[in-house]
């Protein structure tokens, strides 16, 4: 048995039945330097195997520097959650365990839908911003 048990896998397959568009999960790890990142790689590969619209791209943080720079990856473990046609800039750092696993699944669903869920007023205001803003949310795996 892998990291995702059979019961969870069945639930996730149901959830992923709602996927609107393909999602690519690019996971950066480095087995020797960071064993946790190796766990994340396995988790992402198991997750991506649950639905044909999900794909995992496994990268070495040490060796695939070009890809890491292209995606703005600064540390590991890291997962870039990419839409089929678009990179919304969403990155998940750290081990998605406990409630944070749900956050990762939600992130996949959001990217797949291509819809932030924000209201019209918020979208209009954001479209008027004159420069990029980086948003970092810190949480604790529970």
């Amino acid at each position: 048995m892998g990291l995702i048990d059979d019961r969870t896998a069945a639930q996730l397959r149901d959830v992923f039945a709602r996927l609107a568009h393909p999602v690519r999960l690019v996971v950066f790890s480095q087995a020797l330097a960071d064993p946790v990142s190796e766990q994340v790689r396995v988790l992402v590969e198991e997750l991506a195997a649950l639905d044909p619209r999900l794909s995992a791209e496994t990268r070495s943080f040490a060796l695939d520097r070009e890809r890491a720079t292209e995606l703005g990856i600064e540390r590991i473990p890291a997962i870039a959650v990419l839409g089929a046609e678009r990179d919304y800039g969403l990155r998940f750092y750290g081990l998605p365990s406990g409630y944070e696993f749900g956050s990762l699944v939600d992130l996949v669903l959001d990217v797949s839908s291509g819809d932030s869920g924000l209201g019209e007023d918020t979208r209009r205001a954001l479209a008027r911003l004159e420069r990029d803003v980086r948003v970092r949310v810190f949480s604790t795996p529970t």
Partner: protein
Amino acid sequence: MTGYPDLVRRYAISGVPKTVLSDGVEFVGAGSEAKLLQHVERAAHGEDAPDAPA
């Protein structure tokens, strides 16, 4: 948060969820969409303070 002690120190994270935006704009807790937008607008209109690379 426990995985990145350097970031926890740099952004003085003592409670979560904590959100850190560009230009030192930050807040703790979930907050509403309107509140988040206010923070984002503040961060976008601030001076070009260094958003130091990690």
